[in-house]
Protein backbone atom coordinates (compact mmCIF):
# COMPACT_ATOMS: atom_id res chain seq x y z
CA UNK A 1 0.00 0.00 0.00
CA UNK A 2 2.69 2.46 1.04
CA UNK A 3 6.32 2.11 0.07
CA UNK A 4 8.96 4.46 1.42
CA UNK A 5 12.43 4.36 -0.10
CA UNK A 6 15.53 6.22 1.00
CA UNK A 7 13.46 8.98 2.53
CA UNK A 8 15.67 11.83 3.76
CA UNK A 9 14.92 15.26 5.14
CA UNK A 10 17.38 17.99 5.96
CA UNK A 11 16.43 21.11 7.87
CA UNK A 12 19.27 23.32 6.68
CA UNK A 13 22.27 21.28 7.86
CA UNK A 14 20.39 19.19 10.36
CA UNK A 15 19.49 15.74 9.14
CA UNK A 16 16.10 14.94 10.69
CA UNK A 17 15.33 11.79 8.72
CA UNK A 18 18.12 9.73 7.23
CA UNK A 19 17.45 7.24 4.41
CA UNK A 20 14.44 5.51 5.83
CA UNK A 21 12.91 2.50 4.06
CA UNK A 22 9.72 0.74 5.03
CA UNK A 23 6.54 -0.73 3.62
CA UNK A 24 3.05 -0.65 4.99
CA UNK A 25 0.54 -3.32 4.00
CA UNK A 26 -3.16 -2.72 3.61
CA UNK A 27 -5.08 -3.12 6.85
CA UNK A 28 -2.00 -2.88 9.00
CA UNK A 29 -1.63 -0.70 12.10
CA UNK A 30 1.93 0.53 12.01
CA UNK A 31 3.47 2.19 15.03
CA UNK A 32 6.32 4.62 14.57
CA UNK A 33 8.27 4.61 17.80
CA UNK A 34 11.14 6.76 18.88
CA UNK A 35 12.39 9.19 21.49
CA UNK A 36 11.58 12.88 21.17
CA UNK A 37 13.24 14.43 18.15
CA UNK A 38 13.86 11.09 16.46
CA UNK A 39 12.16 12.20 13.24
CA UNK A 40 8.73 10.66 13.69
CA UNK A 41 6.74 13.80 13.00
CA UNK A 42 8.98 14.75 10.07
CA UNK A 43 8.45 11.31 8.54
CA UNK A 44 4.69 11.57 8.91
CA UNK A 45 4.66 15.09 7.52
CA UNK A 46 6.48 13.88 4.45
CA UNK A 47 4.04 10.98 4.06
CA UNK A 48 1.14 13.43 4.11
CA UNK A 49 2.75 15.68 1.53
CA UNK A 50 3.08 18.60 3.96
CA UNK A 51 6.88 18.57 3.76
CA UNK A 52 8.88 17.89 0.65
CA UNK A 53 11.52 15.17 1.13
CA UNK A 54 15.13 16.26 0.51
CA UNK A 55 15.58 12.96 -1.29
CA UNK A 56 13.97 9.56 -1.55
CA UNK A 57 10.54 8.55 -2.69
CA UNK A 58 7.14 7.75 -1.27
CA UNK A 59 4.72 5.54 -3.19
CA UNK A 60 1.12 5.23 -2.14
CA UNK A 61 -0.73 2.66 -4.22
CA UNK A 62 0.29 3.63 -7.76
CA UNK A 63 0.96 7.26 -6.92
CA UNK A 64 4.21 8.99 -6.04
CA UNK A 65 4.24 12.00 -3.76
CA UNK A 66 6.19 14.19 -6.19
CA UNK A 67 3.76 13.84 -9.05
CA UNK A 68 0.41 12.98 -7.49
CA UNK A 69 0.40 14.80 -4.14
CA UNK A 70 -3.25 15.77 -4.57
CA UNK A 71 -4.43 12.21 -5.30
CA UNK A 72 -2.50 10.91 -2.31
CA UNK A 73 -3.99 13.60 -0.07
CA UNK A 74 -7.43 12.42 -1.16
CA UNK A 75 -6.64 8.92 0.12
CA UNK A 76 -5.23 10.14 3.41
CA UNK A 77 -6.67 11.29 6.67
CA UNK A 78 -4.19 13.06 8.91
CA UNK A 79 -4.34 14.03 12.55
CA UNK A 80 -1.38 16.24 13.47
CA UNK A 81 0.04 16.33 16.95
CA UNK A 82 -2.25 18.11 19.44
CA UNK A 83 -4.84 18.78 16.72
CA UNK A 84 -4.22 22.44 15.79
CA UNK A 85 -7.70 23.58 14.73
CA UNK A 86 -9.43 26.90 14.13
CA UNK A 87 -10.35 28.05 17.60
CA UNK A 88 -13.13 30.44 16.73
CA UNK A 89 -15.12 27.97 14.62
CA UNK A 90 -17.95 25.83 15.93
CA UNK A 91 -17.39 22.09 15.75
CA UNK A 92 -20.29 21.64 13.35
CA UNK A 93 -19.14 24.51 11.10
CA UNK A 94 -15.63 23.13 11.09
CA UNK A 95 -16.72 19.66 10.06
CA UNK A 96 -18.92 21.13 7.32
CA UNK A 97 -15.95 23.15 6.10
CA UNK A 98 -13.80 20.01 5.98
CA UNK A 99 -16.56 18.14 4.16
CA UNK A 100 -16.66 20.93 1.57
CA UNK A 101 -12.91 20.92 1.04
CA UNK A 102 -13.02 17.14 0.79
CA UNK A 103 -15.65 17.71 -1.93
CA UNK A 104 -18.35 15.59 -0.34
CA UNK A 105 -21.69 15.90 -2.08
CA UNK A 106 -24.36 18.02 -0.38
CA UNK A 107 -26.60 15.04 0.48
CA UNK A 108 -23.68 13.02 1.83
CA UNK A 109 -22.42 15.73 4.17
CA UNK A 110 -24.94 15.68 6.96
CA UNK A 111 -25.16 11.88 7.35
CA UNK A 112 -21.35 11.67 7.30
CA UNK A 113 -20.96 14.37 9.96
CA UNK A 114 -23.63 12.68 12.09
CA UNK A 115 -21.88 9.34 11.76
CA UNK A 116 -18.50 10.81 12.73
CA UNK A 117 -19.99 12.74 15.63
CA UNK A 118 -21.38 9.47 16.94
CA UNK A 119 -18.17 7.55 16.38
CA UNK A 120 -15.97 10.16 18.04
CA UNK A 121 -18.44 11.08 20.77
CA UNK A 122 -18.90 14.68 19.67
CA UNK A 123 -22.67 14.94 19.84
CA UNK A 124 -22.84 17.15 22.90
CA UNK A 125 -20.22 19.67 21.71
CA UNK A 126 -21.31 20.15 18.09
CA UNK A 127 -22.35 23.75 18.74
CA UNK A 128 -19.42 24.90 20.83
CA UNK A 129 -16.42 26.84 19.56
CA UNK A 130 -13.42 24.54 19.18
CA UNK A 131 -11.28 26.87 21.31
CA UNK A 132 -13.49 26.24 24.34
CA UNK A 133 -13.21 22.45 24.19
CA UNK A 134 -10.99 20.38 26.45
CA UNK A 135 -7.94 18.80 24.92
CA UNK A 136 -9.58 15.39 24.67
CA UNK A 137 -12.51 16.79 22.72
CA UNK A 138 -10.22 18.76 20.43
CA UNK A 139 -8.38 15.55 19.70
CA UNK A 140 -11.68 13.89 18.83
CA UNK A 141 -12.63 16.75 16.53
CA UNK A 142 -9.24 16.24 14.89
CA UNK A 143 -10.01 12.55 14.52
CA UNK A 144 -13.41 13.29 12.98
CA UNK A 145 -11.64 15.71 10.64
CA UNK A 146 -9.15 13.02 9.65
CA UNK A 147 -11.88 10.49 8.90
CA UNK A 148 -14.16 12.82 6.97
CA UNK A 149 -13.38 11.31 3.57
CA UNK A 150 -13.47 7.75 4.91
CA UNK A 151 -9.73 7.56 4.14
CA UNK A 152 -8.01 4.36 3.15
CA UNK A 153 -4.97 5.43 5.11
CA UNK A 154 -5.17 7.17 8.45
CA UNK A 155 -2.04 8.87 9.77
CA UNK A 156 -1.90 10.07 13.36
CA UNK A 157 0.86 11.91 15.14
CA UNK A 158 0.85 11.07 18.86
CA UNK A 159 -2.90 10.63 18.97
CA UNK A 160 -3.05 10.19 22.73
CA UNK A 161 -0.55 12.79 23.92
CA UNK A 162 -1.92 15.04 26.64
CA UNK A 163 -5.07 13.03 27.24
CA UNK A 164 -6.20 11.61 30.57
CA UNK A 165 -6.17 7.83 31.06
CA UNK A 166 -9.86 7.42 30.30
CA UNK A 167 -9.60 9.42 27.12
CA UNK A 168 -6.52 7.45 26.09
CA UNK A 169 -8.46 4.21 26.39
CA UNK A 170 -11.33 5.68 24.37
CA UNK A 171 -9.11 7.00 21.58
CA UNK A 172 -7.25 3.67 21.42
CA UNK A 173 -10.55 1.90 21.16
CA UNK A 174 -11.52 4.10 18.24
CA UNK A 175 -8.15 3.54 16.58
CA UNK A 176 -8.47 -0.20 16.90
CA UNK A 177 -11.98 -0.06 15.51
CA UNK A 178 -10.76 1.86 12.48
CA UNK A 179 -7.70 -0.36 12.17
CA UNK A 180 -9.79 -3.42 11.43
CA UNK A 181 -10.63 -1.98 8.02
CA UNK A 182 -8.10 0.75 7.29
CA UNK A 183 -4.39 1.16 7.12
CA UNK A 184 -3.27 3.15 10.13
CA UNK A 185 0.10 4.73 10.80
CA UNK A 186 0.60 6.31 14.17
CA UNK A 187 3.58 7.71 15.98
CA UNK A 188 4.07 7.56 19.69
CA UNK A 189 6.70 7.43 22.36
CA UNK A 190 4.48 5.55 24.76
CA UNK A 191 5.51 1.91 24.53
CA UNK A 192 2.51 0.33 26.17
CA UNK A 193 0.34 2.13 23.66
CA UNK A 194 2.34 0.83 20.73
CA UNK A 195 2.23 -2.66 22.17
CA UNK A 196 -1.51 -2.49 22.73
CA UNK A 197 -2.59 -1.03 19.40
CA UNK A 198 -0.03 -1.77 16.70
CA UNK A 199 0.46 -4.85 14.52
CA UNK A 200 3.88 -3.73 13.50
CA UNK A 201 6.49 -1.40 14.92
CA UNK A 202 9.18 0.68 13.34
CA UNK A 203 11.59 2.13 15.85
CA UNK A 204 13.41 5.28 14.77
CA UNK A 205 16.36 6.89 16.47
CA UNK A 206 18.17 10.00 15.28
CA UNK A 207 16.49 9.77 11.91
CA UNK A 208 17.39 6.14 11.25
CA UNK A 209 15.34 2.97 11.51
CA UNK A 210 16.83 0.79 14.25
CA UNK A 211 14.19 -1.92 14.34
CA UNK A 212 11.29 -2.97 12.17
CA UNK A 213 9.05 -5.97 12.76
CA UNK A 214 5.78 -7.39 14.01
CA UNK A 215 5.10 -6.32 17.57
CA UNK A 216 5.04 -9.98 18.63
CA UNK A 217 8.30 -10.81 16.86
CA UNK A 218 10.05 -7.84 18.37
CA UNK A 219 8.91 -8.81 21.81
CA UNK A 220 10.09 -12.39 21.34
CA UNK A 221 13.44 -11.38 19.98
CA UNK A 222 13.86 -9.12 22.94
CA UNK A 223 13.30 -11.86 25.47
CA UNK A 224 16.44 -13.57 24.19
CA UNK A 225 18.18 -14.23 27.47
CA UNK A 226 15.92 -14.17 30.47
CA UNK A 227 17.08 -13.15 33.88
CA UNK A 228 16.17 -14.62 37.26
CA UNK A 229 16.63 -12.57 40.37
CA UNK A 230 17.07 -14.43 43.63
CA UNK A 231 17.36 -13.19 47.18
CA UNK A 232 18.62 -15.69 49.74
CA UNK A 233 19.28 -15.55 53.45
CA UNK A 234 21.60 -17.73 55.41
CA UNK A 235 23.88 -18.17 52.42
CA UNK A 236 27.19 -16.94 51.08
CA UNK A 237 27.81 -15.60 47.64
CA UNK A 238 30.50 -18.19 46.88
CA UNK A 239 28.40 -21.18 47.78
CA UNK A 240 25.41 -19.80 45.87
CA UNK A 241 27.53 -19.32 42.78
CA UNK A 242 28.97 -22.81 43.08
CA UNK A 243 25.66 -24.57 43.59
CA UNK A 244 23.67 -22.73 40.94
CA UNK A 245 26.31 -23.04 38.25
CA UNK A 246 25.66 -26.76 38.33
CA UNK A 247 22.18 -26.21 36.90
CA UNK A 248 21.73 -26.85 33.20
CA UNK A 249 21.06 -23.72 31.18
CA UNK A 250 22.56 -21.21 33.61
CA UNK A 251 25.20 -19.17 31.87
CA UNK A 252 26.16 -16.56 34.40
CA UNK A 253 25.61 -15.55 38.00
CA UNK A 254 26.39 -12.07 39.23
CA UNK A 255 25.68 -10.33 42.51
CA UNK A 256 22.71 -8.06 41.96
CA UNK A 257 23.64 -4.45 42.03
CA UNK A 258 22.27 -1.72 44.18
CA UNK A 259 18.85 -1.29 45.64
CA UNK A 260 18.18 -4.17 47.99
CA UNK A 261 21.53 -4.19 49.73
CA UNK A 262 20.19 -2.88 53.01
CA UNK A 263 19.94 -6.28 54.59
CA UNK A 264 23.48 -7.48 55.39
CA UNK A 265 22.91 -11.19 55.54
CA UNK A 266 20.86 -11.37 52.32
CA UNK A 267 22.56 -12.51 49.15
CA UNK A 268 21.11 -11.04 45.97
CA UNK A 269 22.13 -12.58 42.68
CA UNK A 270 21.03 -12.26 39.10
CA UNK A 271 21.13 -15.49 37.18
CA UNK A 272 21.37 -15.25 33.43
CA UNK A 273 20.14 -18.28 31.59
CA UNK A 274 19.90 -19.48 28.04
CA UNK A 275 16.96 -18.35 25.98
CA UNK A 276 13.77 -20.38 26.18
CA UNK A 277 14.95 -22.41 29.17
CA UNK A 278 12.96 -22.01 32.36
CA UNK A 279 15.38 -22.68 35.22
CA UNK A 280 13.16 -21.58 38.08
CA UNK A 281 12.13 -25.11 39.05
CA UNK A 282 15.72 -26.38 39.08
CA UNK A 283 16.81 -23.43 41.16
CA UNK A 284 14.06 -24.10 43.65
CA UNK A 285 15.01 -27.79 43.96
CA UNK A 286 18.66 -26.86 44.40
CA UNK A 287 17.80 -24.43 47.16
CA UNK A 288 15.62 -27.02 48.86
CA UNK A 289 18.66 -29.29 49.22
CA UNK A 290 20.50 -26.61 51.18
CA UNK A 291 19.44 -24.77 54.28
CA UNK A 292 19.22 -21.35 52.57
CA UNK A 293 16.12 -19.34 53.09
CA UNK A 294 14.51 -18.23 49.85
CA UNK A 295 13.22 -14.70 50.19
CA UNK A 296 12.56 -13.86 46.56
CA UNK A 297 12.61 -15.60 43.22
CA UNK A 298 11.55 -13.62 40.22
CA UNK A 299 11.96 -14.03 36.50
CA UNK A 300 12.34 -10.98 34.33
CA UNK A 301 11.47 -11.21 30.69
CA UNK A 302 12.79 -8.41 28.58
CA UNK A 303 10.00 -6.16 27.44
CA UNK A 304 9.67 -3.78 24.58
CA UNK A 305 10.96 -1.18 26.94
CA UNK A 306 14.33 -2.90 27.10
CA UNK A 307 14.68 -3.09 23.34
CA UNK A 308 13.60 0.49 23.05
CA UNK A 309 16.14 1.60 25.61
CA UNK A 310 18.90 -0.52 24.11
CA UNK A 311 18.23 0.74 20.63
CA UNK A 312 17.71 4.38 21.31
CA UNK A 313 20.07 5.12 24.18
CA UNK A 314 22.51 7.95 23.60
CA UNK A 315 25.93 6.55 23.00
Amino acid at each position, binding site marked *: MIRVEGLTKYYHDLCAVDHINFDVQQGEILGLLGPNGAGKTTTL*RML*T*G*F*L*RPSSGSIHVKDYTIDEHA*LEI*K*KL*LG*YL*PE*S*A*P*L*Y*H*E*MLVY*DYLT*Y*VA*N*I*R*ALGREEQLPRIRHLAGLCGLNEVMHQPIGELSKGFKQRV*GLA*HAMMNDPEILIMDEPTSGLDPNQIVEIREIIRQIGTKKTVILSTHILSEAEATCDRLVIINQGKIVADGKTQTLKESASGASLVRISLRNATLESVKKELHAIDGVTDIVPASGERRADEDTVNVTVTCQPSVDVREDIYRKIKETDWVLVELHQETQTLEHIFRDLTREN
Partner: protein
Amino acid sequence: MRQVIAIFKKEFTAYFVSPIAYIVISIFLLVTGWFFFTTFFLYNQANLRNFFALLPITLSFVVPAVTMRLFAEELNVGSYEILLTMPVTYLDVVLGKFLAAGVFVATMLIPTLSYPITVSFLGQLDWGPIVAGYTGAVLLGAAFSAIGLFASSLTRNQIIAFIIGMAICFSLTLIDKMLFFLPKTLIGFLEYLGADFHFENLSKGVIDSRDILYFLSVSVLGLYGAYLALQEKN
Protein backbone atom coordinates in the same frame (compact mmCIF):
# COMPACT_ATOMS: atom_id res chain seq x y z
CA MET B 1 -12.69 25.18 -7.45
CA ARG B 2 -14.87 23.83 -4.65
CA GLN B 3 -11.86 24.09 -2.40
CA VAL B 4 -11.42 27.78 -3.26
CA ILE B 5 -15.09 28.43 -2.48
CA ALA B 6 -14.93 26.46 0.77
CA ILE B 7 -11.86 28.41 1.93
CA PHE B 8 -13.41 31.70 0.84
CA LYS B 9 -16.61 31.00 2.76
CA LYS B 10 -14.75 29.95 5.87
CA GLU B 11 -12.46 32.99 5.89
CA PHE B 12 -15.22 35.45 5.03
CA THR B 13 -17.50 34.19 7.83
CA ALA B 14 -14.54 34.18 10.22
CA TYR B 15 -14.35 37.99 9.84
CA PHE B 16 -17.88 38.43 11.05
CA VAL B 17 -17.73 35.80 13.79
CA SER B 18 -14.90 37.62 15.52
CA PRO B 19 -15.05 41.33 16.33
CA ILE B 20 -12.41 42.19 13.69
CA ALA B 21 -14.93 43.00 10.97
CA TYR B 22 -16.95 45.38 13.10
CA ILE B 23 -13.93 47.17 14.53
CA VAL B 24 -12.21 47.59 11.16
CA ILE B 25 -15.39 48.74 9.40
CA SER B 26 -16.18 51.25 12.16
CA ILE B 27 -12.70 52.73 12.12
CA PHE B 28 -12.73 52.90 8.35
CA LEU B 29 -16.11 54.68 8.26
CA LEU B 30 -15.12 57.07 11.05
CA VAL B 31 -11.87 58.08 9.38
CA THR B 32 -13.26 58.47 5.86
CA GLY B 33 -16.48 60.10 7.05
CA TRP B 34 -14.72 62.59 9.30
CA PHE B 35 -12.11 63.68 6.78
CA PHE B 36 -14.64 63.90 3.98
CA PHE B 37 -17.37 65.89 5.69
CA THR B 38 -15.16 68.27 7.71
CA THR B 39 -13.91 69.84 4.49
CA PHE B 40 -16.94 69.10 2.30
CA PHE B 41 -18.88 72.24 3.19
CA LEU B 42 -15.80 74.45 2.92
CA TYR B 43 -15.31 73.49 -0.73
CA ASN B 44 -19.01 73.79 -1.38
CA GLN B 45 -18.84 71.41 -4.38
CA ALA B 46 -21.09 68.42 -4.99
CA ASN B 47 -18.43 65.82 -5.69
CA LEU B 48 -16.52 63.07 -3.86
CA ARG B 49 -12.99 64.17 -4.82
CA ASN B 50 -11.89 64.54 -1.20
CA PHE B 51 -13.25 61.18 -0.24
CA PHE B 52 -11.43 59.43 -3.06
CA ALA B 53 -8.26 61.48 -2.55
CA LEU B 54 -7.85 60.09 0.94
CA LEU B 55 -8.96 56.57 0.16
CA PRO B 56 -5.54 55.14 -0.85
CA ILE B 57 -3.95 56.31 2.42
CA THR B 58 -6.84 55.03 4.53
CA LEU B 59 -6.94 51.70 2.75
CA SER B 60 -3.19 51.24 3.06
CA PHE B 61 -3.52 50.84 6.81
CA VAL B 62 -7.01 49.33 6.96
CA VAL B 63 -6.46 46.55 4.38
CA PRO B 64 -3.30 45.10 5.99
CA ALA B 65 -5.29 44.96 9.25
CA VAL B 66 -7.88 42.90 7.42
CA THR B 67 -5.38 40.54 5.83
CA MET B 68 -2.80 40.21 8.60
CA ARG B 69 -4.35 37.14 10.20
CA LEU B 70 -5.01 35.16 7.03
CA PHE B 71 -1.77 33.17 7.04
CA ALA B 72 0.03 34.41 10.16
CA GLU B 73 -2.65 33.00 12.44
CA GLU B 74 -2.70 29.64 10.68
CA LEU B 75 1.07 29.40 10.87
CA ASN B 76 1.03 30.35 14.53
CA VAL B 77 -1.74 27.98 15.63
CA GLY B 78 -0.47 25.21 13.35
CA SER B 79 -3.78 24.76 11.56
CA TYR B 80 -1.79 25.43 8.42
CA GLU B 81 -0.63 21.82 8.61
CA ILE B 82 -4.19 20.57 8.73
CA LEU B 83 -5.20 22.81 5.84
CA LEU B 84 -2.38 21.71 3.56
CA THR B 85 -2.77 18.01 4.24
CA MET B 86 -6.26 18.17 2.85
CA PRO B 87 -6.54 17.85 -0.91
CA VAL B 88 -5.85 21.50 -1.75
CA THR B 89 -3.15 23.16 -3.81
CA TYR B 90 -1.25 26.27 -2.77
CA LEU B 91 -3.16 28.13 -5.45
CA ASP B 92 -6.54 27.09 -3.96
CA VAL B 93 -5.46 28.36 -0.56
CA VAL B 94 -4.05 31.67 -1.82
CA LEU B 95 -7.05 32.36 -4.07
CA GLY B 96 -9.61 31.43 -1.41
CA LYS B 97 -8.06 33.74 1.14
CA PHE B 98 -7.53 36.54 -1.38
CA LEU B 99 -11.19 36.39 -2.42
CA ALA B 100 -12.27 36.56 1.22
CA ALA B 101 -10.13 39.65 1.86
CA GLY B 102 -11.13 41.31 -1.41
CA VAL B 103 -14.84 40.74 -0.87
CA PHE B 104 -14.49 41.96 2.70
CA VAL B 105 -12.90 45.23 1.51
CA ALA B 106 -15.71 45.62 -1.03
CA THR B 107 -18.25 45.02 1.75
CA MET B 108 -16.50 47.67 3.80
CA LEU B 109 -17.02 50.17 0.98
CA ILE B 110 -20.78 49.56 0.76
CA PRO B 111 -21.74 51.81 3.71
CA THR B 112 -19.75 54.67 2.16
CA LEU B 113 -22.30 54.70 -0.68
CA SER B 114 -24.31 56.84 1.71
CA TYR B 115 -21.84 59.70 1.05
CA PRO B 116 -22.67 60.13 -2.67
CA ILE B 117 -26.36 59.60 -1.88
CA THR B 118 -26.24 62.37 0.74
CA VAL B 119 -24.30 64.62 -1.62
CA SER B 120 -26.77 64.00 -4.45
CA PHE B 121 -29.48 65.59 -2.30
CA LEU B 122 -27.32 68.67 -1.72
CA GLY B 123 -26.38 69.42 -5.31
CA GLN B 124 -26.01 68.25 -8.86
CA LEU B 125 -23.83 65.13 -8.50
CA ASP B 126 -22.09 63.66 -11.54
CA TRP B 127 -22.42 59.88 -11.12
CA GLY B 128 -19.77 59.04 -13.74
CA PRO B 129 -16.73 59.73 -11.55
CA ILE B 130 -18.48 58.01 -8.64
CA VAL B 131 -18.92 54.75 -10.55
CA ALA B 132 -15.35 54.93 -11.85
CA GLY B 133 -14.09 55.85 -8.38
CA TYR B 134 -15.75 52.86 -6.75
CA THR B 135 -14.44 50.56 -9.47
CA GLY B 136 -11.00 51.96 -8.70
CA ALA B 137 -11.56 51.55 -4.95
CA VAL B 138 -12.41 47.87 -5.39
CA LEU B 139 -9.37 47.36 -7.62
CA LEU B 140 -7.18 49.21 -5.12
CA GLY B 141 -8.62 47.10 -2.31
CA ALA B 142 -7.87 43.93 -4.26
CA ALA B 143 -4.28 44.99 -4.94
CA PHE B 144 -3.69 45.92 -1.29
CA SER B 145 -5.32 42.65 -0.18
CA ALA B 146 -2.87 40.71 -2.33
CA ILE B 147 0.02 42.66 -0.79
CA GLY B 148 -1.35 42.11 2.71
CA LEU B 149 -1.76 38.42 1.99
CA PHE B 150 1.85 38.24 0.86
CA ALA B 151 2.98 40.00 4.06
CA SER B 152 0.91 37.58 6.14
CA SER B 153 2.47 34.56 4.46
CA LEU B 154 5.94 35.72 5.50
CA THR B 155 5.55 35.48 9.25
CA ARG B 156 3.64 33.81 12.02
CA ASN B 157 3.34 37.10 13.89
CA GLN B 158 0.23 39.09 12.96
CA ILE B 159 1.69 42.42 14.07
CA ILE B 160 4.74 41.98 11.88
CA ALA B 161 2.45 40.95 9.02
CA PHE B 162 0.46 44.14 9.54
CA ILE B 163 3.52 46.38 9.60
CA ILE B 164 5.10 44.81 6.52
CA GLY B 165 1.81 45.02 4.63
CA MET B 166 1.26 48.62 5.67
CA ALA B 167 4.82 49.61 4.76
CA ILE B 168 4.45 48.23 1.22
CA CYS B 169 0.99 49.75 0.71
CA PHE B 170 2.10 53.16 2.03
CA SER B 171 5.18 53.20 -0.17
CA LEU B 172 3.09 52.37 -3.23
CA THR B 173 0.62 55.10 -2.34
CA LEU B 174 3.17 57.80 -1.65
CA ILE B 175 5.88 56.95 -4.15
CA ASP B 176 4.71 59.46 -6.78
CA LYS B 177 4.59 62.24 -4.17
CA MET B 178 8.24 61.74 -3.23
CA LEU B 179 9.69 62.04 -6.70
CA PHE B 180 10.38 65.79 -6.86
CA PHE B 181 14.04 65.37 -5.98
CA LEU B 182 14.71 62.82 -8.70
CA PRO B 183 15.85 63.48 -12.29
CA LYS B 184 12.98 64.01 -14.71
CA THR B 185 13.84 60.93 -16.77
CA LEU B 186 13.12 58.65 -13.84
CA ILE B 187 9.89 60.31 -12.79
CA GLY B 188 7.78 58.96 -15.62
CA PHE B 189 8.80 55.43 -14.82
CA LEU B 190 8.50 55.67 -11.05
CA GLU B 191 5.23 57.51 -11.27
CA TYR B 192 3.81 54.49 -13.00
CA LEU B 193 4.55 52.42 -9.88
CA GLY B 194 2.45 54.65 -7.63
CA ALA B 195 -0.93 53.31 -6.62
CA ASP B 196 -2.22 56.79 -5.91
CA PHE B 197 -1.30 58.01 -9.41
CA HIS B 198 -3.43 55.30 -11.02
CA PHE B 199 -6.25 55.60 -8.56
CA GLU B 200 -6.43 59.35 -9.13
CA ASN B 201 -7.16 58.80 -12.83
CA LEU B 202 -10.00 56.44 -12.03
CA SER B 203 -11.50 58.69 -9.37
CA LYS B 204 -11.65 61.53 -11.88
CA GLY B 205 -13.88 59.32 -13.99
CA VAL B 206 -11.26 58.21 -16.50
CA ILE B 207 -11.35 54.44 -16.87
CA ASP B 208 -8.07 53.69 -18.59
CA SER B 209 -6.94 50.14 -19.32
CA ARG B 210 -3.43 51.07 -18.12
CA ASP B 211 -4.71 51.84 -14.64
CA ILE B 212 -6.81 48.69 -14.48
CA LEU B 213 -3.85 46.70 -15.74
CA TYR B 214 -1.68 48.24 -13.01
CA PHE B 215 -3.97 47.13 -10.20
CA LEU B 216 -4.41 43.68 -11.70
CA SER B 217 -0.67 43.21 -12.06
CA VAL B 218 -0.03 44.34 -8.48
CA SER B 219 -2.64 41.80 -7.33
CA VAL B 220 -1.10 39.01 -9.36
CA LEU B 221 2.39 39.89 -8.12
CA GLY B 222 1.23 39.91 -4.49
CA LEU B 223 -0.53 36.57 -4.88
CA TYR B 224 2.43 35.06 -6.65
CA GLY B 225 4.67 36.27 -3.80
CA ALA B 226 2.38 34.60 -1.27
CA TYR B 227 2.34 31.44 -3.38
CA LEU B 228 6.14 31.35 -3.45
CA ALA B 229 6.39 32.07 0.28
CA LEU B 230 4.08 29.14 1.03
CA GLN B 231 5.92 26.82 -1.29
CA GLU B 232 9.19 27.80 0.38
CA LYS B 233 7.91 26.63 3.75
CA ASN B 234 7.96 22.90 3.03
